[in-house]
């Protein structure tokens, strides 16, 4: 879309340029690594070269003797502060610095604080660690073998690598549906371990002011308020003496939800040295040690009638959680929202079981634009539907049309208990097919196949599950997932909006101004958005799981409505009439039936701060706030179609076209929505075709740099073709659903389905991502390999 289509300054919703881009495009953003506090020191982390080893001894004396080193911290020292281990986000503990053993390659072993970054790094080489190397658990499928090494011997009585078993759905009913079904198709698949790989790596600057004992932590966090409370709870620090600031953030994608050892180490470093300490990880550290995503080994089964009515779905998952169970999801959901895996289809019964295991890999599994594992769920169901179409020899679009939920079924309660708020699925799929020219593409494919050329068309229909979440169901470590917003209108009619959510590039400074503008009629350019600083914003759980618009966006809308409600009272006082005699016209109140007599919001704001006599009990000024506890999740959806060409000789895949029709309810700013969709689609192409973190037999990370962990460039991406339908959420005050992760969730199965479709002449039924040229070639030979292990 060209900028000429943007409105210079819409009132409320509409296409407009991002307010924050003025600084980002000029290189004037202010990121954590841009901070330089007076007297600031620099930290560096010594990491384990081994996946599994016992630490016999650590000698830090030479490092301490380095002339520029101010502190050297080991696990032993942290133990004296009771900080060697901290609680994970999933009822486990995480080592800040290893004390007994290292459990994954890249684990934190020691921390050096020095006068400059170079000296800190140099001093790492002066630390001598004596390791006794232990056999690692690399293959999740072998984690529960009787002879598997026990990774978590720090947990009393632990004799295996089992974490949890969890299930959802009705097993007996599902078994019965399968027993009576005409067709059952089984397919094993791996959603491999990938990494969020944000452009900005993780880091922090911590400063414990030795005079007033106030600790300020500038960090790369998607959830500053949650971090502040957790620091208070874990370290016993008084919360009013804690300030967490999340300045400009260069991408999050879930990578910046958790608290990393480096943040804690910067804090401890500052407490010990009484000076500010900066820690900023490098690219390899980010890829090796911070939260990965996915790593689900799934055994799927789908049952259907002979004419293609889907009857049942089941899946058994082996979840690789790495060395510590540190996935971030609501407390009651150890597999996140994976059990929404029945997707967009009307079926009779479903059942899923998930088993979590420890391996000698980095912990996490937080997110990566996954909406709490909806990504894995959508991949599973969309691959299973395509496998069914293959067995039925039925067009995959036709099969989907036949089984999609119908508009009259909403609100729809799924077999695993989710209540989908609204949807008009067939309309979205039909629109995507029309944009694609689906029937023509099938004809072209038939012609190409006759000539031995490989062309594939892949469809994915997804239902997202975002906006976590209702307090009665969802919390993280006991903190309810409600979010706050404060709106304050200044005397001259300009406004400031304070959010509990935080932007990592989503454009909140624009879209939240537009939300408040939509309700109050104040132009977005007159509304300043403040976020990311716990001293200056209301409490809330932060930005991830596409929750900002559905949760905080609702809080902003309601707070803005409260401002308008109060403005009505102020206006009535100014116009000497009853409030009910006034009529709202975006941005002003008029006397009913006479538009010539009224007051604008600016006039009302001045009145509210001035000498106008307000009714008894009405306070002055024009402010409001809201804490929003969402009544339900929102369910954005979309229909995606991918067209690929595969070179039959080299097995290289080219994505020729990608059509994405998204329905996220009304669009606050269509340009920003399209930008988020574009990014998610690129992500999807990356995961489908090239991204993976595999491990060799020694547990070495084989994706520890951008030479090895490939992310797509513009040359691997086609020119995206986007479309929209609008089905508002019935429970969000403005009908908004959120869109941040839709394209990442929905696009990988479309690409994979397209490639597998292209390979149909070779009888290929499935191959795991990433579909690199080598994997595609292996699939054509009938022998796709396991992408989570080293290629043999």
């Amino acid at each position, binding site marked *: 879309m060209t900028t000429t289509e943007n409105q210079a300054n819409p009132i409320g919703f509409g296409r407009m340029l991002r307010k924050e881009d003025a600084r980002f495009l000029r290189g004037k953003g202010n990121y954590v690594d841009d901070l330089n506090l007076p007297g600031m020191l620099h930290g560096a982390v010594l990491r384990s070269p081994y996946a599994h080893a016992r630490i016999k001894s650590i000698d830090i004396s030479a490092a301490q003797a380095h002339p520029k080193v101010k502190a050297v911290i080991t696990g032993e020292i942290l133990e004296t502060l009771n900080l060697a281990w901290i609680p994970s986000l999933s009822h486990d503990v995480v080592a800040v610095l290893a004390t007994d053993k290292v459990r994954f390659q890249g684990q934190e072993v020691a921390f050096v604080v020095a006068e400059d970054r170079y000296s800190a790094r140099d001093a790492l080489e002066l630390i001598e660690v004596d390791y006794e190397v232990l056999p690692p658990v690399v293959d999740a499928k072998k984690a529960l073998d009787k002879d598997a090494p026990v990774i978590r011997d720090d947990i009393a009585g632990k004799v295996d690598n089992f974490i949890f078993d969890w299930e959802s759905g009705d097993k007996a009913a599902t078994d019965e549906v399968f027993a009576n079904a005409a067709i059952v198709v089984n397919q094993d698949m791996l959603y491999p371990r990938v990494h969020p790989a944000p452009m900005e790596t993780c880091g922090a600057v911590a400063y414990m002011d030795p005079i007033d004992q106030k600790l300020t932590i500038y960090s790369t966090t998607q959830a500053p308020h949650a971090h502040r409370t957790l620091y208070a709870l874990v370290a016993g620090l008084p919360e009013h003496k804690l300030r967490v600031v999340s300045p400009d953030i260069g991408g999050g994608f879930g990578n910046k939800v958790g608290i990393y050892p480096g943040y804690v180490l910067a804090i401890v470093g500052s407490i010990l040295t009484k000076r500010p300490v900066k820690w900023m990880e490098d690219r390899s550290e980010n890829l090796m040690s911070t939260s990965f995503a996915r790593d689900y080994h799934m055994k799927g089964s789908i049952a259907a009638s002979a004419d293609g009515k889907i009857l049942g779905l089941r899946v058994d998952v082996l979840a690789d959680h790495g060395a510590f169970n540190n996935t971030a999801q609501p407390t009651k959901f150890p597999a996140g929202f994976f059990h929404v895996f029945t997707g967009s289809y009307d079926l009779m019964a479903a059942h899923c079981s998930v088993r979590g295991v420890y391996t000698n890999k980095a912990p996490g599994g937080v997110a990566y634009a996954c909406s709490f594992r909806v990504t894995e769920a959508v991949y599973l169901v969309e691959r299973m539907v395509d496998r069914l179409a293959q067995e039925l020899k039925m067009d995959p679009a036709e099969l989907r049309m036949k089984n999609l939920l119908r508009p009259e079924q909403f609100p729809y309660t799924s077999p695993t208990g989710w209540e989908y708020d609204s949807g008009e699925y067939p309309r979205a799929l039909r629109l995507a097919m029309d944009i694609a020219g689906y029937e023509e593409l099938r004809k072209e494919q038939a012609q190409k196949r006759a000539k031995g050329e490989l062309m594939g068309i892949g469809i994915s229909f997804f239902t997202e599950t975002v906006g976590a979440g209702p307090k009665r169901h969802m919390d993280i470590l006991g903190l309810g997932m409600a979010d706050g917003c404060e709106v304050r209108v200044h005397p001259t009619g300009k406004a400031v909006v304070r959010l509990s959510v935080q932007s990592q590039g989503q454009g909140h400074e624009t879209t939240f101004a537009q939300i408040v503008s939509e309700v109050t009629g104040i132009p977005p350019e007159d509304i300043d958005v403040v976020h990311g600083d716990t001293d200056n914003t209301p409490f809330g759980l932060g930005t991830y799981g596409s929750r900002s618009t559905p949760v905080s966006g609702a809080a902003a809308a309601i707070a803005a409505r409260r401002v308008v409600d109060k403005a009505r009272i102020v206006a009535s006082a100014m116009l000497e009439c009853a409030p009910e005699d006034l009529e709202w016209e975006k941005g002003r109140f008029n006397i009913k039936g006479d538009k010539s007599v009224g007051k604008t919001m600016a006039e009302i704001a001045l009145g509210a701060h001035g000498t106008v006599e307000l009714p008894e009990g009405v306070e002055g000024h024009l402010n409001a706030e809201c804490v929003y506890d969402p009544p339900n999740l929102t369910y954005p959806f979309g229909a995606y179609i991918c067209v690929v060409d595969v070179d039959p000789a080299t097995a290289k895949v080219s994505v020729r076209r990608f059509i994405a029709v998204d329905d996220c309810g009304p669009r606050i700013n269509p340009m920003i929505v399209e930008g988020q969709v574009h990014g998610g689609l690129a992500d999807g192409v990356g995961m489908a075709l090239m991204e993976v973190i595999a491990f060799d037999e020694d547990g070495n990370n084989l994706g520890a740099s951008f030479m090895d962990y*490939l992310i797509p*460039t513009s040359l691997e991406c086609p020119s995206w073709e986007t479309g929209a339908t609008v089905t508002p959420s019935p429970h969000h005050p403005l009908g908004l659903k959120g869109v941040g992760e839709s394209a990442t969730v929905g696009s990988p199965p479309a690409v994979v389905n397209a490639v597998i479709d292209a390979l149909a002449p070779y009888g290929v039924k499935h191959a795991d991502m990433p579909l690199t040229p080598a994997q595609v070639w292996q699939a054509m030979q009938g022998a796709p390999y396991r992408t989570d292990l080293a290629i043999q």
Partner: protein
Amino acid sequence: MQVPAPVEYERALSVDDAIERLTRLGPEARLVAGGHSLLPMMKLRLARPECLIDINGLADLSFIRRDGNVLRIGAMTRHSELLASQVISEVAKIIPDAEAVIADPIVRNRGTVGGSMCQADPAEDLSAVFAALDAMVEIRGPRGTRVVSVNGFHTGPYSTVVEPDEILTEVSFVTQKNLGSAYEKVERRVGDWAIAAAGAVIALQDGKIQRVGIGLAAVGAPDFRASRAEAYLLGKDATPDLFDEAARMASAECNPNSDQRGPSAYKRHLVEVLTRRALDGALSNSKGKAN
């Protein structure tokens, strides 16, 4: 941020000055040209030279020059300059074919011919290109100037005959009017090293193959070339069956490793496909010139 170990830095004023500094500083000193391989290795502390001698100021090593029927390329010529050169694309299409898929524009703007050759990565495209072109390499040092063939230039992965006190100054090859060439590469993603790559150079005389070179990158081919396939082709009629057989021979004589770019069987398969395509491309390029 990845930070290198402490390192000294000097700037060479001429080739002789660079050699003098190398001699004085010893084997722990390293020349830095484009720096796109050396500096990342230093940041990862896989390379820890005590001193860098910067040769970016040596403008006299930056040239693309016709010298009779020999084309000479100075060691400091940037990849982007090769890619943009009209002379090069007329004489040896294999070079722009390869350069277009070497790394990315940022690396090509800075990286140099000499740096690529001396870095001697087993997947270096230019090593395969110059193997196919039967190039000669000029090396200068305290013991004088020597010119060696690309055959035998590499002594192993990341290792060449250039001694620690020497500097590669020029790569040259013999041109001829009807010389056709082409380069084919498969990579996981643009900018990645090759999974496998093949380049071919061909010239016909009276319908027979009078000159041929086949270069292979990333597949463990000795001297980056398929010499048995070359020998098989020489003096024969350029027919599709002949090319098929040569491609099979090239595939058989390389020795790829399995790694995350693919299993060795796939790489061998690629060598056959790409050699065949490169030979076709080179023949077609040659015929275009003859007309």
